[in-house]
């Protein structure tokens, strides 16, 4: 951790074709309330020309006061021997005494972790609803040959989405709960959260959440540093990134606490704390948000009760069930004594982007 600043000031960082971390992520890591100076947060592999050919990151965490780490990015240059990739992974696992967690893995990485046999792998299913036509956002990603006609797809979206204005008028259900929006959480929120996260290895408190809110990993282009995006494989810059918390009250009693993030056209609910009986009302709030913020095309959540609530809503153009792959090492599971771990969508580094 202490050497992160040295790396940012090094000639490798200034002149290398690839960088292993962005200044934003490094600054955020340095303020992690669960980290200490001796934590190893990045392992980097260099070739004989001192160019980076791979790296693996760690996000320090604690579960029931047990030190552990989330894997946070793992990259090797295409064509690099698989052994480099393996060695980086084994270094990460060893650095943290086999007390590690993985979130938002790709299916391929999930198979690798499962094959290694030292983790409990979990697949959870969430909801993604498309509220507006996302042709320009989705089609070129799936069919790269459509990239040249992206402007036409934008026009198609605008035309089709204009027609949806009538549907929006017909959405009458409003959230009957009172709502408070906030950027920062407090001790009262910790007390509320504690009712829900007993089985969650990813559990965070207000201190953690406020650190996250104040140290995002994404930046809008006008504030971005040059020569970062084109040298870093993972996210750095994005057109729009907003985050906030919402407190939901039934009369005077708090019944929900939800974190939301909007990245470009996607609305996500990385953390949801609410009783099942209020999920439908909370879903109505987000429908109102979708209706009024016309830039948003989709909503994603992995919270069970909210997923069921959104599935009951009829205003989505298209609904998908999407998987999320997580893992927790058996070593950590046995030490933290959580029998049936439950992960939230924002666990690990997912909430930062």
């Amino acid at each position, binding site marked *: 951790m202490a050497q992160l600043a040295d790396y940012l000031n090094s000639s490798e960082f200034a002149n290398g074709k690839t960088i292993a971390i962005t200044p934003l992520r490094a600054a955020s890591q340095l303020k992690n309330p669960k980290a200490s100076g001796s934590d190893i947060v990045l392992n980097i592999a260099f070739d004989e020309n001192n160019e980076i050919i791979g790296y693996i990151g760690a996000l320090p965490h604690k579960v029931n006061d047990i030190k552990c780490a989330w894997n946070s990015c793992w990259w090797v240059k295409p064509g690099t*021997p*698989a*052994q480099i*990739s*393996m*060695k980086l992974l*084994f270094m990460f696992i060893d650095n943290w005494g086999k007390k590690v967690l993985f979130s938002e893995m790709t299916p391929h990485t999930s*198979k*690798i972790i499962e*094959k*290694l046999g030292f983790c409990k792998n979990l697949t959870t299913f969430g909801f993604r609803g498309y509220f507006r036509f996302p042709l320009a956002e989705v089609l070129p990603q799936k069919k790269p040959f459509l990239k040249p006609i992206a402007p036409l797809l934008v026009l198609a979206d605008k035309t089709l989405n204009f027609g949806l204005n009538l549907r929006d008028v017909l959405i009458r259900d409003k959230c009957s709960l009172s709502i408070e929006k906030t950027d920062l959480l407090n001790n009262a929120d910790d007390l509320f959260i504690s009712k829900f996260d007993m089985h969650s290895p990813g559990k965070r408190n207000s201190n953690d959440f406020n650190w996250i809110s104040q140290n995002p990993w994404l930046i809008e282009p006008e504030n971005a540093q040059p020569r970062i995006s084109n040298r870093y494989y993972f996210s750095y810059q994005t057109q729009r990134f907003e985050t906030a918390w919402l407190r939901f009250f039934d009369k005077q009693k708090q019944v929900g606490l939800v974190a939301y993030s909007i990245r470009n056209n996607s609305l996500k609910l990385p953390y949801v704390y609410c009783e099942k009986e209020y999920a439908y009302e909370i879903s109505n709030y987000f429908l109102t948000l979708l209706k009024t913020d016309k830039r948003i095309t989709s909503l994603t959540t992995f919270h069970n009760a909210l997923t069921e609530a959104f599935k009951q809503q009829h205003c989505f153009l298209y609904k998908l069930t999407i998987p999320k792959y997580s893992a927790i090492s058996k070593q950590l599971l046995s030490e933290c004594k959580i029998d049936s771990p439950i992960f939230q969508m924002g666990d690990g580094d997912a909430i930062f982007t």
Partner: protein
Amino acid sequence: MTHDHTFNKVSEIILKNVGQTKLNLNRNTLSSDVDGWGSLQHIMIISEIEETFGIKFDFMEILEMKSVGDICIAIEKQNS
């Protein structure tokens, strides 16, 4: 290259990297049966095998190699 030649060469590489010369290996010998054949040694063994046989394995193939026989089969598959 014959199966025996592949097996002999693989055995030589394994024994050299685990620091044992007198051990008798057979195709059913598992990495977990051999003292000194840990995850890092496994990486070094695979690197030397790739260089010796002029082949490349991917991550999943390496993970699936649990025995001497698995390694030999993986080599023979690449060479066929």
